């Protein structure tokens, strides 16, 4: 059976001064992530899951359930309060993500992990050209061979179907769907073993969404990369994810093969989520 790329164990994130009640008084059974005793926000109340090589895991749940907090923590955009996340890279090295110091975190972001944000203004530098954005990431990863960088940039722009003629344009001159495709190229150009996608199609036209989903599906077959897809759109996980976990109020309420979670949801909350959407 495939190796594990990621093992996430009991990850917690509390905004505010944690009190002894925080974890027991929040979560799906309390229908809230705010601690009634101290008012802290328990964004993640002990989240655990695994991800295998080449697998795509979906994370669904309503707004505020902690999805973004979870992937941002794994990508070092923010810190956690406690818990462990073990990442195993292509070389088989097992890395304790939350024990890395800043320089190691930067190295992992530049060489092993990739992130595509809902908001292209976070994922792209709007002061650089589109080609420059992608090249910058290779430079940060330590590449200095300019001919090689140029050819990598071109090959990834091709993969995401951006005409090479537009390589020197600025991101602001691109449509929302194109900006997302540039973000995808930028995230993948370093050949990461793990890619995070946080609501990457939210707010786009349906036809533009379909094109991006189709592209991600294609890249899944072509590249050796495990993915975590965060979305509140069940159609997105149905299409992309092998397995899906469902989050509510900072906790995982259930998980399983995506078609099983959608067809035979066990938890009360998941049943409501699905019947309200289909």
């Amino acid at each position, binding site marked *: 059976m495939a190796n594990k790329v990621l093992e996430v164990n009991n990850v917690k994130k509390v905004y505010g001064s944690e009190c002894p009640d925080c974890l027991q008084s929040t979560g799906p059974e309390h229908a809230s992530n705010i601690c009634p005793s101290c008012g802290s926000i328990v964004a993640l109340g002990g989240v655990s899951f695994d991800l295998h090589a080449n*697998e795509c895991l979906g994370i669904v749940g309503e707004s505020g359930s902690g999805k973004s907090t979870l992937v941002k923590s794994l990508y070092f955009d923010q810190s956690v309060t406690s818990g462990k996340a073990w990442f195993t890279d292509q070389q088989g090295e097992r890395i304790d993500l939350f024990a890395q110091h800043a320089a190691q975190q930067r190295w992992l972001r530049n060489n092993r992990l990739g992130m595509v944000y809902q908001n292209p203004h976070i994922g792209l530098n709007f002061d650089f050209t589109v080609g420059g954005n992608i090249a910058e990431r290779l430079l940060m990863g330590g590449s200095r061979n300019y001919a090689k960088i140029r050819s990598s940039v071109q090959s990834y722009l091709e993969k995401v179907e951006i005409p090479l003629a537009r390589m020197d344009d600025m991101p602001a001159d691109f449509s929302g769907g194109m900006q997302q495709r540039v973000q995808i190229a930028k995230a993948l150009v370093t050949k990461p073993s793990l890619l995070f996608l946080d609501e990457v199609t939210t707010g786009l036209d349906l036809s533009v969404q379909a*094109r991006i989903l189709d592209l991600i*599906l294609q890249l899944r*077959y072509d590249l050796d990369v495990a993915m975590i897809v965060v979305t509140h759109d069940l159609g997105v996980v149905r299409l992309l994810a092998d397995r899906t976990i469902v989050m509510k109020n900072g906790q995982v309420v259930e998980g399983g*093969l995506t078609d*099983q979670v959608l067809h*035979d949801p066990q938890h*009360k909350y998941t*049943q409501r989520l699905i019947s309200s959407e289909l």
Partner: protein
Amino acid sequence: MPILSVQNLTKTYFVHEQERLVSTFKNLSFEVCAGESVVLSGPSGVGKSSILNCIYRTCLSDTGKILFTQRDQDQVDLIQLPDAGMLALRKSGDIGFVTQFLHSLPRKSSLEVVAQPLLKQGWKKEEALDAAADQLKLFMLRESLWNLSPSTFSGGERQRVNLARGMILQPRLLLLDEPTASLDQATSVKVMEHIMEVIKTQKMAVLSIFHDIDMIENFSDKVITVS
């Protein structure tokens, strides 16, 4: 040894919103051997689709065993198998499932949809598309439709794309939920004749559901009545 041995399988659904228990079959047992076409029959709502879903893990079983004989002749209980193991059996073409629904993207052509299981296994694109064309021919889909997306197709055309995709890996165990429901009588018969031929030559084990009595009579080696 049978490819599939279902033992004392029970499935209930619980609908939280209405606090209602929906019971389907209880203590169901049957077997499907290589080269055999077994049909599930019984009134609507008795749980025929649920049986296929339990086997493919599109739903969870309560109790019982679903023993599947792997290529190396080892038996695994599909109920106990971890998700990753079930995914591997699906991807390798050990177990295939053709339902009445086909989820496809507007940008994917029929050829690409049918080739998808091969692409997932890492086949070269041209070879996968060639194999897909062969399948579409076998399922008699007009060639002028091959490069169009099934999202605009008629029910019967879509169903044939779906069958072609389900058959492309020639799964060792194939589950078919009303595979001919949207086809006219003549096409249904042709499609099933083709599938039966592959079952016999490739020694596939097939478990299906049909509503049409004639189809059950003509295309089953064994009928399991679910109650």
